[in-house]
């Protein structure tokens, strides 16, 4: 873990932003106090898209009235990221991905494993791994209508049901004794409590901004901004590069490890790039691949877009497909978010901390 001193943190975050002179915690509070709720209110007011629902983008932990000492944005609020935030003197964490291991984001282990047989493992026609067992993708994070592609938006899941296996009758879930304490939930909750952290999820509305912050951030990181061909930041025409070199460059630049995977002839030449940030459905891939050399996306169902790209490549059609991983895909967007937050919360230092790539690959 990289040790980040408070001095470094302030130096990093103050650079280029509204200059906030370093103050100790007490004088900072007396100079200008801002609560987590204040910052969230400013986010809602300034984000530039309608705050349409409070299903996903809500407080996940902590007291909104907490006075903020610093803000960390992140792709995913892992315990490791929370520790880095504390080291940096921040107590408000704004995350793209869930904090408590499911879309429902509940701070106790209600979703899976403990108690009943666990979501996705119940009896029913989908038992045993059919694609039909897949949970509905989040509408906020799907490449589809409104992102320059043509996939229909799936219906928004109803929150309480998302922790219940869809094919399982509720009557079956009858744990006679309370489930044992899950040490991972307990450890994370204890750390949040000890350090009085506040966690807010910001993804559904953030990713509705145009240009798409994930595409904007990825292009900036890769040095592609000047090669933009579309108006929506999803298309780029870059100097010729092989598919294999492009994949390697993405891996290095984005800090991916085992999560990045590719389909297509490694030696094919890429010029036209189509970005489909987030989770991509088949329809969006079919609408995009014919007019680009390669699709770069976050995550797909393997039996959909991945198999489509596999068939295209097998037929000898020179097209590539790169899946960089969902968490890695969210990181550039949350970097953009940190830069934006500095402009609406000038009282406090703001910085981005990456959760990295969850995956590694055995040798």
């Amino acid at each position, binding site marked *: 873990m990289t040790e980040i001193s408070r001095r470094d943190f302030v130096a990093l975050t103050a650079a280029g932003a509204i200059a906030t002179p370093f103050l100790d915690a007490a004088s900072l509070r007396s100079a200008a106090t801002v609560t987590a709720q204040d910052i969230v209110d400013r986010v809602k007011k300034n984000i530039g898209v309608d705050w349409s629902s409070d299903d996903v983008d809500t407080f996940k932990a902590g007291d909104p009235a907490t006075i903020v000492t610093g803000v960390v944005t992140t792709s995913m609020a892992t*315990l490791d990221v929370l520790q880095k935030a504390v080291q940096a003197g921040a107590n408000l964490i704004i995350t793209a991905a869930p904090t408590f291991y499911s*879309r429902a984001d509940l701070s106790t282990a209600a979703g899976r494993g403990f108690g009943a047989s666990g979501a996705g493992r119940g009896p029913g026609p989908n038992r045993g*791994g059919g694609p039909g*067992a897949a*949970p509905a993708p989040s509408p906020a994070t799907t490449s589809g209508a409104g992102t320059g592609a043509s996939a229909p938006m799936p219906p928004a899941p109803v929150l309480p049901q998302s922790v219940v296996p869809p094919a399982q009758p509720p009557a079956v879930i009858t744990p006679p004794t309370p489930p044992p304490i899950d040490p991972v939930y307990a450890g994370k909750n204890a750390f949040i409590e000890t350090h009085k952290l506040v966690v807010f999820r910001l993804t559904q509305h953030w990713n509705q901004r145009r240009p798409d912050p994930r595409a904007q951030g990825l292009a900036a990181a890769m040095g592609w901004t000047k090669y933009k061909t579309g108006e929506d930041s999803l298309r780029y025409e870059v100097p010729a590069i092989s598919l*294999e070199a492009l994949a390697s460059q993405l891996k290095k630049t984005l800090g991916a490890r085992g999560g990045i995977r590719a389909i297509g002839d490694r030696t094919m030449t890429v010029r036209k790039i189509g970005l489909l940030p987030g989770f991509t459905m088949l329809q969006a891939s079919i609408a995009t691949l014919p007019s680009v050399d390669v699709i770069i996306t976050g995550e797909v169902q*393997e039996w959909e877009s991945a*198999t489509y790209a*596999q068939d295209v490549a097998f037929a000898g059609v020179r097209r590539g497909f790169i899946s960089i991983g969902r968490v890695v895909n969210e990181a550039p967007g949350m970097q953009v978010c940190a830069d934006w937050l500095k402009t609406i919360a000038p009282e406090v230092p703001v910085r981005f901390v990456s959760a990295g790539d969850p995956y590694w690959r*055995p040798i």
Partner: protein
Amino acid sequence: MPTLTAGDVVNRIKAVMAVQGVAWNDATTRDRFKFGGPDTLVTGIATTFMGTFEAITRASERGLNMIIPHEDTYWNDADNTVIAEADPLVYKTKVDFMTAHNIVVFRIHDHMHRQRPDFTFSGTAREVGLDPSMETAPNSHRFVIPETTFGELAARVKKIRGDDAIRVVGDPNAKVSRIATGAGMATPAVNVPDIDVVIGGEQREIEGTFDSPEYVMDAATVGVAKGWIILGHNMSEESGMQEMADWLRPIVPEVKVAHVRAGNVYWVPK
């Protein structure tokens, strides 16, 4: 001259499954003809994970014109061809190939998962080197192996399986011995107290009913021994199509039955 039709093959599959306790569900949308039909004469049968263009081509090259894939043929679970027809790159080429080579495709998914053993599980256990004698109970899909480190186990699985695109989450130094295996999207929960490692096929990285990658990352930070090995949907279910070919062979003695791999999906960059 072969006189066996695809309809004959399907009727025998249904009959034998019924005898073995799996009554045919006519309401299935998955286990149906996806190309060709019951009247097509069968020259040989290929079982495969998915009706990829590669699997169909390789089967045809070997004189096998009946394809029995576990998963879909047109890149979506419902095999909705309206979605696939929108593609100008490969859809027509694939369909034209199937027409020209008198291919018939019949999917076997739901009923295969109802068989005991479920070959997708037993096939994966075989291919990742989990000895059946280490399974805690028949069809429990749980194995207890001599204690090792998670990194060593992951390396062993990758070496035996032989594919690059295996993805792993967790502390390589964690001491592990209790393994749960999954197939396809049915990836078992990793936050069960008496399981150290889950070896599964495919699961959403975030936004699911349970997001194992983040849980396992936090488990490593807290110091709880957990590991997650994600083979890929293809890699987790292809193995069992070998068992399915072995199951089919005695009931269709007139023709050759072979397992033809659907082909690797992903490669990984350096």
